[in-house]
């Protein structure tokens, strides 16, 4: 071999470098597509205007013992999760575009482990979702909810964990699909109901829906967020005003486990060769 070719393997390709570069690419692509940015900023602003405009009235939680929870307080965490859900999952549609444009093929034959591909795409999508969540959080501060700095940091971290879980879920779905239309179908029959039945929209009552809520991991994401948002670190009475919710440790544990499991499923999915890999 000549000297020029002997230098190829001076260092092994670092998987974390691949994660970083794929994640960064995701963000750059996002900010270059103006309609996506407008949508991303517009959606939280729209929700914020709706809340601010007329829904500030008193709202009594069914089964709750406190009549003073406002409509806004009740719906804010669920809306936050909805924003994250939409953005996180739509961000992974880009995997279908990557396939169609042939970019994915080049990544598949690069010396990059599949978990690095998954993490790069998922972190990229999660950061976009998180940015939107933070924007809505900031808007929320202007209409009624006071947050401490610590609380904001913890909430942001928690939102990131939720976003990672949902983006990984979207990745798993998108990996097998060859059209964005198919993705929209799954979105409406699976993901939207998943959100509706998470306690974001209405609390659990005694019907069979209670059981659906109980096994839906998003229920714990919403409940955990609800607790964190109304959490007062200096108060001992942590359960007020949501005595019916799962305990904080259960919420956080389920959410973290859900994200970890989603990532593992996404990784296993990406390890398999699909027909969609064969583009030409």
């Amino acid at each position, binding site marked *: 071999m000549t000297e020029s070719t002997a230098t190829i393997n001076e260092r092994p390709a670092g998987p974390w470098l691949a994660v970083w*570069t794929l994640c960064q690419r995701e963000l750059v692509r996002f900010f270059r597509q103006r309609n996506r940015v407008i949508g991303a900023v517009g959606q939280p602003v729209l929700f914020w205007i709706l809340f601010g405009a007329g829904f500030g009235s008193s709202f009594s939680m069914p089964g709750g013992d406190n009549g003073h929870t406002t409509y806004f307080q009740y719906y804010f965490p669920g809306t936050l999760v909805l924003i994250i859900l939409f953005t996180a999952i739509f961000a992974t549609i880009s995997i279908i575009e990557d396939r169609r444009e042939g970019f994915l093929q*080049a990544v598949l034959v690069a010396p990059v482990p599949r978990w690095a591909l998954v993490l790069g795409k998922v972190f990229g999508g999660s950061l976009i979702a998180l940015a939107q969540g933070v924007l809505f959080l900031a808007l929320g501060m202007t209409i009624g909810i006071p947050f401490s700095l610590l609380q904001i940091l913890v909430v942001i971290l928690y939102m990131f964990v939720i976003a990672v879980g949902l983006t990984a879920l979207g990745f798993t779905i998108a990996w097998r699909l060859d059209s964005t239309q198919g993705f929209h179908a799954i979105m409406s029959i699976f993901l939207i109901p998943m959100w509706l039945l998470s306690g974001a929209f209405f609390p659990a009552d005694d019907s069979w829906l209670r059981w659906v809520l109980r096994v839906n991991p998003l229920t714990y994401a919403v409940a955990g967020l609800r607790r964190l948002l109304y959490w007062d670190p200096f108060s001992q009475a942590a359960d007020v005003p949501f005595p019916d919710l799962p305990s904080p440790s259960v919420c956080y544990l389920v959410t973290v486990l859900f994200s970890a499991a989603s990532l593992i499923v996404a990784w296993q999915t990406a390890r398999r060769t699909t027909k969609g890999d064969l583009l030409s």
Partner: protein
Amino acid sequence: MNSSSAIRVTGLTHHYDDRCAVNDLSFDVEVGEIFAFVGPNGGGKTTLFRVLSTLVPLQKGDAAIFGHSLRTDASEIRRQIGVVFQAPGLDHKLSVDENLRHQGHLYGLTAASLRERCDKMLSQLGLTARRGDLVEKLSGGLRRRVELAKGMLHRPRLLLLDEPSTGLDPAARNDLWTYLRQIREQEDVTVVLTTHLLEEAERADRIAILDKGNLVALDTPDALRDTVGGDAITIQTADSRQLADDIGAEFQFPVEVIDGAVRLEQPEGHRLIARIVEAFPGRVDAVTFSRPSLEDVFIDRTGHRFCQDGAPEKG
């Protein structure tokens, strides 16, 4: 294991569901060769390309690249090969520079060495002035050059290209070949490409002809042409079967009918034409005479014409 083989394939068979795309292929590609797989659409070139580029797993048989088994050592092989797919693999929303930078990161290149390689590839391929442009603003020929830059960025020892000249005009095609020869000479890169154009394959050092998943010929273009027994004569006529039989009976050599035309290969073809026309007055509508081409080799080996519809292989 022969250490001078860039690629060694033995008994490679590949199925899609129950369709056999590649059947029991065995061949070697030497280090430093420009090697072309040529064949009609559906011949198995793209399947072979997918296997060699590690995109699909090996099913049956064995294949090694620089002595590393495709079955067990795909990640080492990935470091040593550059791949240029037929479907463009560029991110259109990113600039030329950004595409190269991400590619470099995927191959573990960073900082100064990455910058140096990018600069070198861009200047080698005449892209320096366009480095800041978004890929979506580039012409097809320029995009193909960016693909080449991407494929060569990490100094692969073997460059695999699937139908690299599809969509290129003749000038761009010439540039491509100049570049391929240049990297072979200067960087000792082995080049393996697929094509459905026989005239393109003739530019390679050695060619392998694939038809319906089988390897029907493998040699240098000259050696292959020499295997065809002389000049090729094609005769258009109303009843080709009858004329073929009559010519065969009259002159005592094999005559075939291919795609409705009488076809024969004999030395001293120009003299033979005159004798045939005289022997069968009024029955010959048109005669084509040609020195043996790769198409003749193909017909000789497969018994049918090389259908060139210009469309890239699908599936």
